[in-house]
């Protein structure tokens, strides 16, 4: 059963875009399975951004957000290869919950206490 994941990479800003793409291809290849021959659903390059605090004495990083579809057993090897990659200074892998959640419920006029259970209405 395949799952959707969202991965954010922060690359060393001194790397060329070609190097970044080459590294991404190399890591994403590890996610290929019979059920998910095309693991990359969406790839968005944010480009170079200033970091909120220096990481490894670097002030800027090249951000890439990837929406991936793969099977859970592929992940440990994938994360291992990311950790070993010197050009990636930080990464985050999260399960993509879909985010297509239902719209917020209708607000009642006296709705200032959300801790109250709904069943005592």
């Amino acid at each position: 059963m395949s799952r959707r994941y969202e991965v954010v990479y922060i690359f060393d800003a001194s790397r060329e875009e070609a190097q970044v793409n080459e590294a991404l291809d190399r890591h994403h290849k590890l996610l290929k399975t019979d059920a998910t021959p095309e693991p990359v659903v969406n790839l968005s390059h944010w480009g170079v951004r200033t970091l909120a605090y220096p990481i490894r004495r670097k002030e800027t990083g090249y951000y890439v957000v990837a929406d991936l579809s793969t099977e859970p057993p592929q992940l440990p090897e994938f994360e291992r290869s990311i950790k070993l990659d010197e050009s990636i200074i930080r990464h985050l892998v999260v399960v993509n919950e879909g985010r297509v959640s239902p719209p917020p419920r209708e607000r009642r006029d006296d709705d200032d206490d959300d801790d109250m259970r709904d069943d005592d209405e």
Partner: protein
Amino acid sequence: MRRSKSCPVCEMGIHWLDYKDEKTLSRFITDRGKILPSRLSGMCARHQRQMCIAIKRARHLALLPFIKVSA
């Protein structure tokens, strides 16, 4: 800051707080970079829980600071 009567995130019409949206999240940190308690923001419990995780993820990705040092 006085507690507002209703949840600011519900009022914005946002159902899910995204950790990549540091502009929205930065509204809910203090000037030192701490997470604002719901006691002050009036945020509902569900959004406070979501926001807490979102801010911690954003900090890991250097989108938000862990601490802001005042000049």
